[in-house]
C-alpha cells in the first residue's frame, strides 16, 4: 500500500490535463487499426488517498494506449481504455470491476496500486472470470492469496525488491539497521522481508519503529532510534510523507546522523530539491525506475519520457515542479504491452477467449528490454503470476537522485509460494 505527495501543479495545467483526459476517454483513438475495439477497463485512484498516483497512472496509460493504437492496436483491432474511479476503496473497487466487466463489456480489467483495493477486487474478478492485471507492487499475488485470474505482469513485488537490495545495503552502508515503517501490511512486508534478508547477510535489524497509519506528525518517534544505528531504513506512505522526511531532517539537524536508506515511496512525486530536504544529500534510495535519466540509460528511455510527457528530471515537461510518480507509473505502461502480447499470443478475439489469454500470459517467461518495457528486461513467473525485474539504488547528489547501483534479476528471486496454473479457472 502506498501513497505519495507533493508536487506543485499549476491550476491551468490541471484543468488542461483534465480536459484532455475527458476528450481522450470520450473519443477512442482509431488511428491505424480497424474493427470493433478491444476494451480495457482501468480501475483508477481518482479520488481518495491514492489520487496523486492515479493521475500519473492515467497519464502513462494514455501514452501507452496511443502508441499501441498507432502501431496497429491489438490483433489489428483498435484499443480503448475505460477509466473508472475506485475512490481508493476496496468496496467500490469491487463494484468497479463489476461495472467495467459486466456493464461496459471490457475484455480485461487493469488493477491499481493500493493493495487493499486489489485484494478487495480480486474475488469478484475471479467470479466474473475476467483477467485482472494489477500494478500494485504488493506481495499478495505471488503469495498465493488471490486467484488464477489475477496477475501482476508490470511491476516487481515488494518482497523481491527488498531481497534484491538488502545485500547492497549490508555491504555498503552498515550492518546495524533501524527500520521506520507504517504499521500496516505494506510496512510489515518491509519489516519481515528486510529483517530476514539482513540476517542472511550477517547484519541485524536492531529496532523496528512502526508508525500508526493515522499519524500526521512523527518527531516523537525519532528518539526511539538507537544511538548505535548504522543505517536508518525508512519507508513511509500517505499524504504525510513530506512531513515525515522534513521532520527527520529537523531531528538530525546539523548533528551526527547514521547512513540513511529510504524507499522512494517516502518521496514519490516529491521534488528532492524541496526546502527542508537538504539533509538528504548523500543518502540513498531504492527506485523502481530512475526518476533522473541515468547517464547510461537504455535506448528507449528518451522515447518513453517523451511519450508520457516527462523530462529528464522526472517532472512534467510543462511544469518542472510537477514531479511524477516515476518509480511506479511505468507499471501501467508495461502492463498494457503485456496485455497486447498476451492477447496476440492467445489469438484473442473476444471474452470467450479470456481463459486462453490467461494461459498465454502464464506461458510467458523472458520479456526483453524494449519500448514495451522501458524500465528494463523482466521475467514473468507463470506459476506465481508475478513478474521480476531489476532494481535501482540511487544517491542524492546535488539534490538529484543519481543511480549508483542496479541489481540483477537473480538478486530478487525467491522460492515460489504458489502454483496458480494448478488451480481451476
Amino acid at each position, binding site marked *: *500500500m502506498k501513497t505519495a505527495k507533493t508536487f506543485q501543479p499549476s491550476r491551468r495545467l490541471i484543468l488542461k490535463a*483534465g480536459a484532455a*483526459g*475527458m476528450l481522450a476517454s470520450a473519443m477512442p483513438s482509431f488511428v491505424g487499426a480497424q474493427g470493433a475495439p478491444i476494451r480495457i477497463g482501468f480501475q483508477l485512484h*481518482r*479520488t481518495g488517498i491514492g489520487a496523486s498516483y492515479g493521475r500519473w497512472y492515467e497519464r502513462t496509460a494514455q501514452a501507452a494506449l496511443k502508441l499501441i493504437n498507432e502501431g496497429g492496436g491489438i490483433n489489428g483491432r483498435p484499443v480503448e481504455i475505460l477509466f*473508472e*474511479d475506485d475512490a481508493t*476503496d*476496496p*468496496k467500490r473497487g*469491487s*463494484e468497479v470491476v*463489476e*461495472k467495467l466487466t*459486466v*456493464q461496459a463489456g471490457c475484455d480485461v480489467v487493469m488493477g491499481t496500486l493500493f*493493495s*487493499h483495493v486489489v*485484494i*478487495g477486487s*480480486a*474475488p*469478484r474478478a*475471479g*467470479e466474473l472470470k475476467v483477467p485482472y492485471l494489477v500494478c500494485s507492487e*504488493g506481495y*499478495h499475488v505471488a503469495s498465493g*492469496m*488471490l*486467484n488464477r485470474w489475477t496477475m501482476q505482469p508490470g511491476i516487481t513485488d515488494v518482497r523481491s525488491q527488498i531481497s534484491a537490495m538488502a545485500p547492497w545495503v549490508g555491504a555498503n552502508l552498515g550492518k546495524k539497521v533501524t527500520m521506520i515503517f507504517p*504499521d*500496516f*501490511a*505494506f510496512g*510489515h512486508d518491509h519489516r519481515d522481508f528486510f529483517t530476514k534478508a539482513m540476517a542472511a547477510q550477517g547484519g541485524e535489524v536492531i529496532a523496528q519503529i512502526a508508525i*500508526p*497509519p*493515522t499519524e500526521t506528525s512523527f518527531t516523537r518517534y525519532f528518539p526511539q532510534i538507537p544511538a548505535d544505528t548504522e543505517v536508518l531504513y525508512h519507508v513511509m506512505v500517505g499524504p504525510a510523507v513530506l512531513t515525515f522526511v522534513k521532520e527527520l531532517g529537523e531531528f538530525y539537524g546539523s548533528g551526527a546522523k547514521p547512513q540513511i536508506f529510504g524507499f522512494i515511496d517516502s518521496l514519490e512525486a516529491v521534488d528532492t530539491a524541496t526546502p527542508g530536504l537538504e539533509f538528504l544529500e548523500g543518502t540513498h534510495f531504492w527506485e523502481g525506475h530512475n526518476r533522473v535519466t541515468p547517464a547510461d540509460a537504455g535506448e528507449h528511455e528518451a522515447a518513453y519520457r517523451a511519450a508520457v510527457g516527462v523530462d529528464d528530471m522526472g517532472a512534467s515537461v510543462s511544469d518542472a515542479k510537477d514531479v511524477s510518480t516515476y518509480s511506479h507509473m511505468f507499471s501501467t505502461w508495461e502492463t498494457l504491452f503485456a496485455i497486447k502480447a498476451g492477447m496476440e499470443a492467445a489469438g484473442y478475439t473476444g471474452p470467450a477467449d479470456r481463459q486462453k489469454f490467461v494461459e498465454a500470459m502464464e506461458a510467458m517467461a523472458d520479456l526483453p528490454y524494449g519500448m514495451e518495457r522501458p524500465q528494463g528486461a523482466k521475467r514473468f513467473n507463470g506459476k506465481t503470476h508475478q513478474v521480476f525485474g531489476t532494481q535501482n539504488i540511487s544517491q542524492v547528489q546535488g539534490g538529484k537522485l543519481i543511480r549508483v547501483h542496479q541489481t540483477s534479476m537473480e538478486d530478487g528471486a525467491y522460492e515460489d509460494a504458489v502454483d496458480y496454473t494448478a488451480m481451476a479457472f
Partner: protein
Amino acid sequence: MTAARIWALHLALIAALFAAQYLLPPYHVTNLARIMVLAVFAMGYNLAFGYTGLLSLGHALFFAAGMYGGGLLSYHLGWTALPALIAGLAAGGMMAGAVGLLALRTTGVSFMIVTLMFAQAGYLTILYFGPTTGGDEGLNLPAAGRSLLGFSLSADGPRYLVALGLFSTALLCCLGIARSRLGRIMVAMRENEERSRMLGYNPFTVKLIALVLSGLFSGLAGAAYGVLFGYVGASFATIQYSILPMLYVLLGGAGTVIGPFLGALLMFYLIDFASGLTSAYLFFVGAALVTLVLFAPKGILGTIRERWLGWLP
C-alpha cells in the same frame, strides 16, 4: 385495513426484488445484491437512530464486528457460511451491547463522539492484530467459507437469493418491531425520554435493547457482505462506513421501514451514475444531499408519509 395494506406493500417489495433477478441486466442484479445487504445494515442503523433517536457515529464497529466475527472463523477455522453468518450476527449484537453499556451513559453529541471513538479504537485494533486480521489489506475468504448448505455463494444466483433472504427477513423483522409494543416504546424514547421514564420505562434498558438489535442487524450485514463478496477488510471499519448508513437512512427517511433500502439504492446509483458522467462526481453527490435536506428534510419516505401516506410504517 391498514395492517393489510402495510403487509401487502412490504411483501410486494420483496416479490419485486425476487422478480428483479430475472428482469434486470446482470450488472444491476449484482448491484441489488450489494444494496440489499447494505440496506440490512441501514435498517439496523435506523432502529437505533430512526426509531430510538440514538445518533451513533460508530456503527462501522458493529458492521466490522460481524464481518470479522464471521470472516475470521471461516478464514482460520474453515467455518462454512451459515455458522459464519450466525457468528457475525452474534458478534455484532455483543459488540453493540458492550459499547451500549458504556456509551449510553451519555447523550446527544457526547454519544456521537463516544461511539465514534470506540469505532476508531476498533479500527486500530484490526490493524494492530494484522497477522490475524490481514490488517489494512484484508483477507480473501476461502471457497469453503462461501458455501451455504452446499451452494457456492460466489455464483450470482445463490448469492442474490441469500441476499434477498437476509433482506426480506430483516425487512419483516423491522416491520414487526416497528409495529410492536417494543417499537412504540423505542419511538417514545426518541420523542420524549422523560415522559417515557414516567410511564415506567427505563431509558437505559430500552436504548440498550435498541442498540443491541441494531448491532445484530449490522453484524449480520457485515458477515453477509464478507461471505457474499469474499473480502474482509479494515476499510469497512473506518468512519466512512459509520456515515454511510446514516446517509442511507436520512435520505430514505428516518423511522420508516423501507426508507433505508430506498436510501441505499438511491445513494448507490447516484454515485454510480454521476461517476460515469464526470470525474467530479462527489460534487454532485454533495449537492444532491444539500438539495434533499433543503426540500425533503425528512427523507424521501418521511416526506411522502407526512404529505400523503400517513399509514406508512
